[in-house]
């Protein structure tokens, strides 16, 4: 018997190994409850490695997801940064347009209110070159071809800017009223006090001086100064500036009054060149240019 078992040990052993699970399969296949304790024990056997595997791969997955999220966040951050840059640019552009629109609207309103004149709209394309120079002039993008002539007044909706000094091809140089060479006859609106407005040449302040104001004249702070029209250079009643202070400085027989121009020269972008007057038609309406 011992020899037999020794001779056929493998065969017997493997046969038993084949039969035992077959029997188990036979019974548990028909009714799973029959071998439930064994099934539970086998399932429990799988638990430790499943816990270890789950913990390991969860950690790896978390790290990976974190990395992917980080990459995503970085990409998102870059995208948002570009978007912010683009939107900031767009915002600045829109603000610029809004400011320009406001300025142009002001000019249009001025043009409508002052319909007695014929205008040529122009854009400021240059300033007098050196801050050390007392000459104060701007360059406009309009020239002779646009009907612009030397001496023509230049205005904005805020007031008088200056006059065309020189024409050079397609551009025109304007002498500002704050230029020390500038002379124009003005008056204090509704008071009849007249004088000569001379630019102070002070670049930082853009101010002017009202000269030849007779002693005892009624001049108050914030009085409006307008062109008198007496000099034949500028049409009458164009706003020029305001009296800065009541305190007047005496020069000989006359007083000198500091004037703050109505125009903010620091922000000058578009102007109107007064190219002539418009004659009223027979029916009282505005007619053609003179």
């Amino acid at each position, binding site marked *: 018997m011992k020899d037999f078992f020794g001779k056929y040990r493998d065969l017997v052993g493997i046969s038993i190994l084949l039969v035992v699970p077959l029997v188990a399969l036979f019974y548990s296949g028909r009714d799973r409850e029959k071998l439930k304790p064994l099934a539970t024990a086998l*399932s429990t056997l799988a638990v430790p490695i499943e816990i*270890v*595997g*789950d913990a390991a791969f969860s950690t790896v997955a978390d790290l990976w997801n974190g990395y992917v999220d980080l990459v995503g966040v970085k990409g998102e951050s870059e995208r948002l940064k570009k978007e912010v840059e683009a939107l900031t640019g767009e915002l600045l552009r829109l603000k610029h347009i809004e400011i320009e629109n406001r300025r142009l609207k002001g000019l249009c309103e001025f043009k409508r209110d002052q319909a007695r004149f014929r205008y040529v709209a122009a854009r400021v394309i240059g300033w007098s070159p050196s801050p050390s120079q007392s000459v104060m002039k701007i360059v406009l993008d309009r020239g002779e071809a646009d009907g612009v002539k030397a001496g023509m007044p230049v205005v904005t909706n805020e007031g008088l800017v200056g006059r065309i000094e020189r024409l050079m091809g397609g551009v025109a140089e304007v002498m500002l009223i704050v230029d020390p060479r500038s002379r124009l006859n003005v008056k204090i609106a509704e008071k009849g006090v007249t004088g000569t407005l001379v630019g102070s040449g002070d670049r930082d302040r853009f101010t002017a001086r009202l000269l030849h104001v007779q002693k005892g004249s009624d001049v108050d702070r914030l009085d409006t100064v307008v062109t008198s029209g007496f000099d034949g250079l500028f049409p009458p009643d164009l706003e020029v500036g305001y009296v800065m202070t009541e305190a007047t400085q005496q020069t000989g027989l006359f007083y000198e009054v500091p004037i703050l121009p109505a125009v903010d020269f620091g922000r000058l972008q578009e102007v109107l060149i007064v190219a002539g007057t418009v004659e009223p038609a027979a029916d009282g309406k505005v007619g053609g240019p003179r």
Partner: protein
Amino acid sequence: MRGFILWLIAYVFTGLIGSLTHQLGATSFVPDVTLAFVVYAILNLRPLPAALTVAAIGLMEDGFAGGGVIGLHTETLLLVFLLLQTFLKRWRATTSFGVILAAEVGLFVHDLVYLILALLFDSEFRGAALVIQAVIPRMIITLPLIPAVLAIVRRVDRRFFRPEPRLFFDG
């Protein structure tokens, strides 16, 4: 003892692969590397210890399967073991390619035998179509894992037992 170590590696691999596929959400086609262990056992152990190791691996698979029907995986693996033993002895498939091919064929046979046994003995079995659909994908998914599993098993086996270089993957 060699059989136990083999079983232990199979246990770790099966558990980790199950967890990995679960994490990846690829539970439809889980690779089955147990056939690599079966082939290794056939080629490196004597028949009875090899059969015992295979039976233990089968029982472990029954446990991983949820312990529903006891013996289904064990019986399937033992039958495939017998078939592969015959095949490997007859064809002397001891090269790397031969061993991988044997494991792949074994996997195919395993799924068919499993299906037959489940249909015969498991009264609640309803997944025949799923098993058939998964046969080829499982073979494909398992293919790249077999050389890796065999290499690891061989390395561990050599480290612990220093067996004679009887078989494949020498060098």
